[in-house]
């Protein structure tokens, strides 16, 4: 049985995630294919989806326009594992606010029971790399690349906190949803992508 993993290819760093999944599949020796997906039809055939980094407002609006957003929501509700990175984490959330601008009207998937603070660590000059640990999923050390990153300011009962940095929550898991505010696809370390691929595999068996 071949796993069919997709990277949402509306906008952002799609190729980087594509390559990280390719590497993960081969390192794990799992039979699977990875594709860049845009349309509802392509998304409906997936076993797992990555929503990459980019501009969340733009990705939300454009996937609303072509009907992809609705299909993504239905698929996740029916159990498809999803990995949201930075913008992807914002899109999965129920509630998002900008640190400076405040309330923003933007389409959200309204699934991950968290409150997001956008641009939580400041502007680009404040972007940083730091060592993170995600002990609950067995990753003790990971180079977190935070680019104008959001953080989680409030979590619901079902949400497990995977990582914090300086008291701010930067990675969470809720059932079939995993999210990080940093960018594992910009590093050589595939351990987070591998952990997601494993999640997709487990959901199929």
């Amino acid at each position, binding site marked *: 049985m071949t796993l069919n993993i997709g990277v949402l290819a509306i906008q952002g760093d799609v190729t980087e995630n594509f390559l990280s999944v390719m590497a993960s599949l081969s390192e794990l020796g799992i039979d699977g294919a990875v594709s860049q997906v845009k349309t509802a039809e392509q998304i409906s055939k997936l076993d797992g989806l990555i929503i990459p980094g980019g501009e969340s407002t733009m990705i939300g609006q454009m996937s609303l326009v072509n009907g992809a957003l609705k299909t993504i929501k239905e698929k996740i509700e029916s159990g498809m594992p999803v990995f949201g990175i930075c913008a992807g984490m914002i899109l999965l959330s129920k509630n998002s606010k900008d640190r400076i601008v405040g309330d923003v009207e933007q389409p959200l998937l309204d699934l991950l029971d968290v409150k997001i603070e956008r641009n939580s660590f400041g*502007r680009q000059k404040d972007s940083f790399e730091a060592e993170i640990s995600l002990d609950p999923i067995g990753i003790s050390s990971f180079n977190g690349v935070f680019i*104008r990153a959001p953080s989680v300011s409030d979590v619901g009962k079902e949400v497990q906190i995977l990582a914090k940095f300086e008291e701010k929550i930067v990675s969470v898991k809720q059932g079939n949803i995993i999210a990080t505010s940093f960018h594992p696809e910009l590093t050589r370390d595939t351990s987070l992508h591998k952990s997601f691929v494993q999640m997709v595999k487990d959901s199929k068996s």
Partner: protein
Amino acid sequence: MIPLSGDIPNSKGEIKEVNEMTSISRGTSTLKRGFAHMLKNGVVMDVTTVEQALIAEEAGAVSVMVLDKLPSDVRKAGGVARTASIRIIQEIMDNVTIPVMAKCRIGHVYEANVLAETNVDMIDESEVLTPADEYHHIWKWDYTTPFVNGARSLGEALRRVEEGAAMIRTKGEPGTGNVAEAITHIKKVNDELRSIKSIYDSGDKQDLVKMARELKVSYSLVEETAKIGRLPVVNFAAGGIATPADAAYLMSLGCDGIFVGSGIFKAEDAKERARAVVLATTFWEEPDKVKEAQKMIDERQSILGLDVKDLELKMQERGGTV
């Protein structure tokens, strides 16, 4: 993993903060180039006011570029074009959630310092403004803030990367509403990339050294670029883009995204056009969607445009030879 070809470790712009619990780095190549990677497949729009910035954000722009005047007005006004008012840049930063960029003059170190202090997300060392130094570009490794530079050829692009640019835009002719130059230059860069890649693949080191001399850039950067067969940083198209079809065509030539200058806010249907250009950039592979986007605009409201042959001032030539 993103390509880090030409990276200078421990450059001045890289800041390490170490305390008891954590050690963090800012201004690394991964962070600066990574920022540009987050803009891919998006449209960056030139704006001069908060109102325009809000229209751009709502239309789905991934970033706005703040100028004092739109390029076509810079062309008309003549005189010296400088960086925009800090007050307006700040006001825009306080009102949109997307990243904010601003332009400084080529070689003007202190305009760049002022923009970096203002905390803009990216600085464009731009030929649209009057160059302050005909012989030197800014040494961009000294900054924690990432830079984007224009280029008309592979050599120009790699020289800018060597100086620390985290992103390139292939130059068209700004403020003309004429996409011809942008098309010519992206094709030229693509041809040159193909050519160095084939030399690399053939294993002819001597020829690659010769290429490095011609391109006036270090051998190691040429070798690494030849190996991956593309620019090591994100490359957007810019200059003269006026319609959704212009944007989609440039995407099809392998650009990572689009800068639109005068094309949107010099048109009379700015709001619809902004949205239409974003749609065409996002869905450039789907002809029916590009048609729908093109249908949203009215050609009678497009910027009139200029024939590049008749221009007295060619902004694209600024800073190109060094």
